[in-house]
């Protein structure tokens, strides 16, 4: 495999210091390579206990009894926790809906749901004791799929209307009379009229798989409940939201809950919000000692996954290829608990709108409870679900009209500044130019080999989530600079980028700036690390905070040298004016008149300048060439090009790596990965049976088209990256497979499925 970065046609405007736009060395790299990076599961504390979970073997049922006697009698077992320990407070948590108990209470809602937990001196003792716990459950009828869950008279997964969680302003929750926990739509124009007047209507039902995010590090947490408060060391993407959930759950003040984030071994959305941390906290409270809870891969697959989805969609167009209407109705399977399902669903509704000039549109999405493991966030959520479907239909329109698929897209796209949907930010990217760039990069007009197909797919997804981030930048008495920001480093390179952003303002080398993982006791608030928002929003806060410190340094120098502050420059770790120079240390000393002291700068981002959302539209654009083996059904990605429309690449190398990772995970979803249930049980819960892409599945060639138009709201005109390419890659691969003559309507396009889709006649018997 080779990777090419297509650089912009015009030379990048040089940054003042060179810190922005350079492939700075990763600040977290050396520790990871040397094995010195401590992840949550590596931490050890005096008196720490190890926990093991007892999971339900029943898909849906009433808990009759839990016998913990034999487990408690085991030497080394300290305590056992069951639902009965949770009756003196409100033990339910959840981001969108407060529906998930710390442990199952009275009722289990999916096979694999935690029903009890054991704390012991060692993990082995805890696991052995967990085997001794006898759980008796009366089985209830269950719903394993969205179709079953929305059928009339389907058994209900939850009783009563959903209780809102901590998601501010969420509307569209269900009324508790069905398994639909959330429903929203975006609509304009008269879709029925447009469809009946159209020359072409493409219509179909499509399926998108449940997949596991597969971060290398599984869900891991250590909790320590003391009289002084609760501290958790958690592999958590959103430490401040986790802190708020724990405080609400245990009726504590925010200041009494401290979330410390160690190194994180990948997140991809799986470590968003709250999962196993309340259980670890509750175990520590009961045991009176620190408790370590590290879930294995199989257990992590049951902890968070991506929503599978069934979507009915139609696209209407005129005979000359003018797109008229889109009509999409889909149901997302959120499993037994809502987690982030409503947001995933709403993002899919927004993504289904797509940036074409529709006369009429109706995108209707529902989040549905079923008796399966809970589904939450995964890279590019929503857009990954629906973009491929819409783009398959646009391709089919082009085919029926007899127009080139790229030309048809260019003809129907909104230009920069055009409306995306009512009440939202207008299109803030040069999508037309991006389509032309990706077509050129993939070799759109070049001849294909035998069995090959080519596809291009575009879309938008809302980026930036909430524009709420704060940061501090500190200059110590020795001139050292530290950035405190709530963005979590999960492997994406956020710490390095934050150092580069601060370096640009302060005129020091990025590798001289310290950026640590968040600790809610000392790090300023940040809402989330997701939705490609870190560089754009948290980065903006860092830029403001660093500028604040720079202004203080300049003011001290200006006063010292009796010159205007605007004439003082910061470069190479010095302040200078004419022939005069002072180190940062000298300036801090001068400012305080003492050998100690520190300058602290603060940056707060509270809204977008124009008040519009999303913060930016993330471009989801890719093109792919695939080869289909018509004998075996195997699909291989020959070449794939993704567009990183990032406004400004703070670190081009990290941008490229983001697109590569997003693409490889896209290949997994498009071709290989799918969680499978049989009789309500997850059956492929190991890496033997669940196929994540390996080096064997790499494309022959990957091209990252870097677009730097300086049109982002972040530092130096940057905007987020890393999710759009995932949705784009899935869709481009799907379109390329269809172009090769495979009538696909379901992902992943496994060899077996492709073979069946291609089979001209009933399959020959054995």
């Amino acid at each position, binding site marked *: 495999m080779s990777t090419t970065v297509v650089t912009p046609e015009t030379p990048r405007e040089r940054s003042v210091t060179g810190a922005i736009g350079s492939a700075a060395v990763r600040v977290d790299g050396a520790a990871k390579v040397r094995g010195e990076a401590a992840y949550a599961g590596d931490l050890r504390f005096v008196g720490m206990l190890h926990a093991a979970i007892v999971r339900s073997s029943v898909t849906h049922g009433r808990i009759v009894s839990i016998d913990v006697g034999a487990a408690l009698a085991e030497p080394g077992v300290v305590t056992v926790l069951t639902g009965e320990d949770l009756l003196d407070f409100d033990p339910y948590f959840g981001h969108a809906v407060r529906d998930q108990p710390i442990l199952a209470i009275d009722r289990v809602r999916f096979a694999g749901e935690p029903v009890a937990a054991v704390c012991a001196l060692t993990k082995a003792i805890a696991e052995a004791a967990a085997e001794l716990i006898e759980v008796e459950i009366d089985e209830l009828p269950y719903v394993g799929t969205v179709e079953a869950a929305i059928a009339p008279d389907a058994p209900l997964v939850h009783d009563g209307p959903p209780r809102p969680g901590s998601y501010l302003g969420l509307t569209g929750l269900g009324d508790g009379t069905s398994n639909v926990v959330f429903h929203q739509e975006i609509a304009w124009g008269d879709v029925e009229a447009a469809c009946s007047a159209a020359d072409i209507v493409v219509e179909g039902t499509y399926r998108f798989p449940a997949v596991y995010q597969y971060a290398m590090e599984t869900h891991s947490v250590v909790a320590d409940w003391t009289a002084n408060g609760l501290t958790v060391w958690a592999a958590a993407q959103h430490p401040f939201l986790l802190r708020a959930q724990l405080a609400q759950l245990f009726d504590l003040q925010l200041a009494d809950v401290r979330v410390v984030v160690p190194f994180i071994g990948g997140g991809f959305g799986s470590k968003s919000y709250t999962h196993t941390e309340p259980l670890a906290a509750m175990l520590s409270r009961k045991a009176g000692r620190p408790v370590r809870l590290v879930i294995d891969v199989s257990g992590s697959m049951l902890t968070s996954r991506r929503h599978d989805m069934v979507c009915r969609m139609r696209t209407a167009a005129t005979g000359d290829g003018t797109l008229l209407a889109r009509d999409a109705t889909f149901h997302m399977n959120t499993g037994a608990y809502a987690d982030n399902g409503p947001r995933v669903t709403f993002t899919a509704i927004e993504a289904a709108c797509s940036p074409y000039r529709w006369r009429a549109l109706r995108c209707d999405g529902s989040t549905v409870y079923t008796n399966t493991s809970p589904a939450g966030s995964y890279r590019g959520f929503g857009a990954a679900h629906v973009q491929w479907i819409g783009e398959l239909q646009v391709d089919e329109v082009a085919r029926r009209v007899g127009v080139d698929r790229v030309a048809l897209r260019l003809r129907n796209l909104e230009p920069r500044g055009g409306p995306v949907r009512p009440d939202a930010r207008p299109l803030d990217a040069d999508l037309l130019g991006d389509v032309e760039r990706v077509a050129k990069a993939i070799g759109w007009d070049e001849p294909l080999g035998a069995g090959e197909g080519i596809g291009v797919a575009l879309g938008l997804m809302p980026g930036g989530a909430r524009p709420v981030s704060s940061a501090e930048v500190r200059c110590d008495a020795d001139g050292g600079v530290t950035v405190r920001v709530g963005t979590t480093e999960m492997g994406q390179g956020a710490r390095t980028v934050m150092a580069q952003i601060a370096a640009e303002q302060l005129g020091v080398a990025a590798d001289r700036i310290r950026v640590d993982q968040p600790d809610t006791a000392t790090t300023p608030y940040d809402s989330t690390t997701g939705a490609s928002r870190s560089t754009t929003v948290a980065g903006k806060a860092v830029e403001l905070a660093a500028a604040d410190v720079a202004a203080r340094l300049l003011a001290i120098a200006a006063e010292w040298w009796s010159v205007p502050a605007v004439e003082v420059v910061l470069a190479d770790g010095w302040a200078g004016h004419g022939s005069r120079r002072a180190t940062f240390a000298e300036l801090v000393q001068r400012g305080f008149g003492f050998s100690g002291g520190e300058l602290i700068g603060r940056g707060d981002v509270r809204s977008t300048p124009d008040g519009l959302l999303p913060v930016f539209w993330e471009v989801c654009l890719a093109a792919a060439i695939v080869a289909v083996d018509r004998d075996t059904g195997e699909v291989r990605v020959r070449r794939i090009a993704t567009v990183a429309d990032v406004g400004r690449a703070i670190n081009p190398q990290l941008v490229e790596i983001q697109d590569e990772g997003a693409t490889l995970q896209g290949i997994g979803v498009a071709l290989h990965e799918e969680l499978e249930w049989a009789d309500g049980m997850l059956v492929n819960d190991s890496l033997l*049976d669940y196929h994540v892409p390996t080096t064997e599945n790499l494309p022959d060639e990957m091209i990252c088209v870097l677009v730097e138009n300086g049109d982002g709201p972040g530092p130096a005109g940057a905007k987020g990256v890393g999710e759009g390419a995932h949705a784009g890659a899935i869709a481009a691969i799907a379109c390329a497979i269809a172009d090769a003559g495979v009538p696909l309507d379901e992902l992943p396009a496994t060899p077996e499925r492709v073979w069946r889709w291609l089979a001209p006649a009933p399959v020959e*018997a*054995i």
Partner: protein
Amino acid sequence: MALPTFELHRPTTIEEATQLADEYGDDAVFHCGGTELLLVMKLGLAPYGHLIDVKPISELRGVIADDDLWIGATTTHRQIEQHAEIRDRWAGLAEMTSTIGNLRVRNVGTLGGNLCFAESHSDPATALLAGGATVESRRGGETVRSIDMDDFVTGPFETALRPGELLVGVRVPRLPDGAILLHRKIRFHERAAATVAISIRVNDNRIEHVRLAVGAVGNRAGLVADAGSLLTGQPVDALAANAIDDLSHAAVATGRPVADAFGPADYKAHLLRVLVRRTIAEATALGMS
């Protein structure tokens, strides 16, 4: 889940190993690499209290490439893959071995361990069948007996070994002059959906000798009995289409596909037919050159 506790024994002779196996009975298992055994123990599927590590037994060790090839049971896949004589004279065997698992597995896993575990997707089992191998086994206090490879694996996770009997080594005959051994698989997951191994000799455009084995589709690898009669004497440059069709159907009949995590039976049967066709084409082209 954590590996359950067990007692590890490290006998240095077959006699000691058999004695331990007799003593602990069903609670004991021979251990030779552990790349599969320890996994199933971790899953809680094989709660043995005693593991008898046979790697210290010198009688099970070594590779002798003479007129024929003898590979000791404790030889790792990596040793086979890198062995100069095997690479030279049994190239297909070395090549097959280099496709087993991954480098970490091949560095630890052994040929004997693989064959005795008798996982139905085993690559060596299929390749050795095509190569006409026999296995040698011995119980402590007894003499070595030879078992035809086709009789050795009797079903999934089942072999012809008696309790306390150890696989000593595998004997692979010299390939006929001009013959080649080829092992091919179709694999989309961790394990193959279909495997074909062929030993073939082409002389003057005629197929003179052929031995075809199929694996991974069913419960055990098997030799396609009709391969010789269907292909021997056939001209390579004009192989009758119906002969290939008949052969691929015979392969399916031998392989007896069953559904597993790597595919349903009808698809695996189809893949096997495709693989037979492709492997014959590749092997005959190689045999010609």
